[in-house]
């Protein structure tokens, strides 16, 4: 039996740093490995559709004819299963807390046509990094890729007719 058993803890809390953040003035740094939105490295994607078939919620759509890969962020539950099935390992998660969005939009990625495998190997030998956007443009021009690739080389994932959307999930 006793009284005021929580006293020391409560008193101690008076002199400690607060446990909460003053959101939105302070925000938390997302830890490495946090689940976040699915990003497709469009330069490696071969539009095979494995991710679309694997996705539990049907969030991904792959259009081979139109050369687009799209994801509905409102259906994606960030389970990461698509990442594990992708044969080219081009999907990844961007550690990131979702901001609020104003509209429901489907994120569409235009996938450029890829040079023939032999050519791609030669590019790799030259040390062209798929992620380095500046080098990529030059490589694309060298490899004689179609204009779509050059257009997409800024790394922008075009968002339907509405253009880029920073607030997308």
């Amino acid at each position: 039996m006793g009284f005021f058993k929580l006293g020391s803890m409560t008193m101690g809390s008076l002199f400690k740093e607060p446990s909460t953040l003053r959101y939105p003035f302070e925000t938390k740094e997302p830890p490495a490995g946090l689940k976040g939105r699915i990003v497709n490295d469009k330069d490696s994607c071969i539009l095979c559709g494995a991710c679309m078939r694997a996705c539990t919620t049907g969030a991904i759509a792959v259009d081979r004819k139109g050369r687009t890969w799209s994801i509905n962020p409102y259906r994606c539950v960030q389970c990461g299963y698509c990442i594990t099935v992708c044969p080219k390992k081009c999907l990844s998660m961007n550690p990131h807390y979702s901001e609020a969005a104003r509209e429901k939009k489907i994120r569409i990625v235009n996938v450029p046509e890829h040079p023939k495998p032999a050519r791609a190997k030669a590019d790799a030998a030259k040390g062209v990094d798929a992620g380095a956007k500046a080098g990529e443009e030059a490589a694309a021009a060298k490899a004689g890729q179609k204009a779509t690739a050059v257009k997409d080389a800024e790394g922008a994932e075009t968002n339907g007719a509405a253009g880029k959307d920073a607030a997308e999930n």
Partner: protein
Amino acid sequence: MGKQTIIPFGPQHPVLPEPIHLDLVVEDETVIEAVPQIGFIHRGLERLVQTKDYNQFVYVAERICGICAFGHSMGYAETVENLMGVEVPTRAQYLRVIWHEMSRVHSHTLWLGLAADAFGFESLFMHAWRLREKILDVFERTTGGRVIFSVVKVGGVTRDLDDQQIDYMKSVFADFRAEYTKLIRAFLDDSSVKNRTVGVGTISRADAVNLGMVGPFLRASGEPYDVRMLGSNGYGELEHFEPITDDQGDCYARIRVRCEEVLQALDIIDEMLAKLPAGDIAVKVKGAPKAGSEACNLVEQPRGECYYYAKGNGTKYLDRMRMRTPTSQNLAGMAATLKGCDVADVNMIVLTIDPCISCTER
């Protein structure tokens, strides 16, 4: 002798984190009978097993419940592994145990906070939830999610722990333990808590067993039954395991059992982290469960024993997946415990069985 009246309790009620409805038949201030009614949040998840293949269903299984998310994905994956005869690497089994015990810690501290809130001890509620946040942070750093983790797959787990993460976990758990030990003094020794819980909602051991109760509700009545003591899967690697029991069977006993189970879970995590073996974290699973094959599995969820059953049909889609959740086992016990109690104690009693209606209704 007063007149009998029916007081509806729930599905929306300040002490209820999830919707359950009780018709309380009261006479004066005493509950004569309690008739539970569920079915407010049925989502038909079991049926989904026929449209999602056995790998995809892991992600459905873990959404059965937010608090025992890890337990359900593990329980389901183990059932399918039994069905297909898959041997999971030891490291993956250890990791599963670690994350499952962390879920128990976060579930019990969440519950302790809710219990404190139910008996009106707001600062205790805040402290319990503040501590729980530390566990959620560990989850976030090790699995990438705070509540839904998606780290289990059929054949193992999808993420590994590196040395840095293990050190980080050890230091957080050491801090957590120190603060938690202080926190439970308020639950176990404070007279205001005892006044509200000792001798309230008592159920005898014989009744608890006859009504098929499970989990801390059963153990608080003195029956030493816990699935972990069967030593299946990763739990077989533990040096020693003894269920925590209490023989009083009242609300206080249920609080005490849960308070101590958190410490026990922390011990298990420490032991598992200390002897985590090297090796693979998953094996490749190919093929599909054979037609007509059946498997079952038991998992000790934070709320008690959960039973899983799966039946294959030769395709990647299972024929049947069934879960019997701890709360559905405990509802009969809850109705029995409520008989004869004061109306003012109903919320404490309902809360001390820790009902998880999302699991129950799936």
